[in-house]
């Protein structure tokens, strides 16, 4: 069954008097346990598509079904619920709250889900152990390295058991070695049965995915499965 089904969606922004067609006519489906990379130069509409997929934004026209339910005409609160329960975001700049330690950062989505404190603690702790940060639970972001911060962010994305993980340039702020480690972590997460959507403009990052969707000028230029997929070695940062 498709998790995501998009048919002929378009997004038009108004900038002053001019209309900007960020997305013109995009259709795609993403199934459970897929590992998809969305690629494209800046201005191709990949950020817009990403926001749409993440239910942060709604399309101007077209159909977007998330697990068979139309998202296009949902209210703000319903969208917030979908984001909370079905989607895990990973950002380029990590977006951790500086005054919260690792476990509180990871807990945050569960707070909005209304999960009681003890269960929250437990699940957040498990998520941190899963990303290899079991010994950094009480560290604040400024006491962690870039890679570790991104791992906290990934733990935060995973903690609600979402249907999809949406990662926007997750290695963009990391050196290549650390980036590789993060990609290995994504690989591992994918192996466990998660669905991952990766937005990137770097070819070698995209090649970690099983499928690459290339956007150009608000249209899908190419949608293909990767033949020579790059599988990272599974090793952990010590």
């Amino acid at each position: 069954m498709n998790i995501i089904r998009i048919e002929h969606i378009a997004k038009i922004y108004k900038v002053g008097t001019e209309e900007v067609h960020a997305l013109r006519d995009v259709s795609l489906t993403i199934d459970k346990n897929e590992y998809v990379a969305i690629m494209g130069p800046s201005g191709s509409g990949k950020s817009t598509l990403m926001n749409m997929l993440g239910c942060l934004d709604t399309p101007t026209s077209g159909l977007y079904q998330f697990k068979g339910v139309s998202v296009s005409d949902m209210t703000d609160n319903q969208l917030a619920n979908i984001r909370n329960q079905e989607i895990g975001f990973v950002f380029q700049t990590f977006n951790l709250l500086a005054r919260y330690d690792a476990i509180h950062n990871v807990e945050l989505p569960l707070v909005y889900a209304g999960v009681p404190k003890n269960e929250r603690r437990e699940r957040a702790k498990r998520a941190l152990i899963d990303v290899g940060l079991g010994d950094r639970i009480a560290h604040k972001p400024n006491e962690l390295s870039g890679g570790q911060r991104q791992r906290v962010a990934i733990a935060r994305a995973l903690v609600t058991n979402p249907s999809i993980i949406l990662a926007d340039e997750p290695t963009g702020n990391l050196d290549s070695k650390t980036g590789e480690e993060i990609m290995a972590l994504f690989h591992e997460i994918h192996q466990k049965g998660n669905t991952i959507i990766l937005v990137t403009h770097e070819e070698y990052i995209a090649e970690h995915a099983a499928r690459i969707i290339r956007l150009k000028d608000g249209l899908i230029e190419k949608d293909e499965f990767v033949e020579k997929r790059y599988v990272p070695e599974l090793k952990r940062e010590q």
Partner: protein
Amino acid sequence: MRILLFELKEGLIIALRAIVSNKIRSLLTMLGIFIGVAVVITMSTAIKGIDNSFQSGISSLGTDVLYVDKWAWFTNQEWWKIRNRRNITMEEYYRFKDLVKLPVAVAPVTNTIQTIKYNERRVENVFVNGSTADYVKTTNFTFAEGRFYSETESNAARQVAVIGSEIAKKIFPNISPLDKTIKIGGHNYKVVGVLAEQGSFVLGPWNPDNQVYIPIETIFKNFFNRSFRTITINVRANGPAMVEETKAEIEGVMRNVRGLTYNMENDFSINQQEGLQRSYDSIVGVIQIAGLFITGLSLFVGAIGIMNIMFVSVKERTKEIGLRKAIGAKRRTILSQFLLESSLICLVGGLAGLIAAIIISLLINQFIPTSIQIDSVLIGIGVSLLTGVISGFAPAYTAAKMDAVEALRYE
């Protein structure tokens, strides 16, 4: 309901973290509310205290006492017309006293301002009242020690005195004044009675506590002769219900005594404390409004401070708001988070202000009476919470309706 409580609890924790992570800023913001609430509460307790004190002071005058006087306490008549009235004399008092039937007590009163001395201690500018033994029946006086002077002492112009509680405190700080000999304007008097505390500082020199009472005949003997100035006749009606009737009677009797014919105006006035009450009410009303307005301004300035800081805080945390929205915070949640933050700041500042106000009130109480009431405490808490909600609303609303995509992109 449970969800609401959960959100409230989590929102409080989040707000608390935000406040604590910005200690100095939060403290300075609280200071604004602290000062605002402190002055508003202090002001209102002071006004309340003065008012209470006045009310008790004025009731020590008696609601059923009428003052037949040459002078009117409150009048629209021209001053010279009143000044040209004939003095009220002792002879008129005697005839008046014989003719009236309704009053329970009638007493002539005159006064002089003198210095009171006992050994080295002295009090200057004291109202010394001269009257008869019946005077005490026209008042609600209670005695700390001793008694009022008797009819015999009064008629015989004895050198005896009854002193108010404040006077007693000043010249007899450690010993009982009873039977001691004090000097009033150079003459010796034996103290036969000391009043218990009666009234109120707001009455100033008219406060019985600051006065001395001697027989009227003694005043005429020691200080001036009986036709030197007009006297006042204090008349007590038989209870407040009888005031109007008594007033009518004494007006008629007084006109008769003064030999006024039907076409002549009264050449005397019948005063009562009701008039005092009225003019007091209007003065206090103005003080109250002006005082609360001025102190309210400082609270308003504090509120603007909160609003300002909350706007800054929202702007600063744009990215955080974007993130919170991305991971599932609803508008309502963001709104309540910031509202809770501003309310919490106000509440803490307000409570501190309240405590300060109570301390200040207790200090002021040494000089003028203040009255801390449970309602002003509740008002203090309520006002600070309300300030928090009102001044926090616009910033919180801005945060709540932020576009998540743009907020996340904000640097």
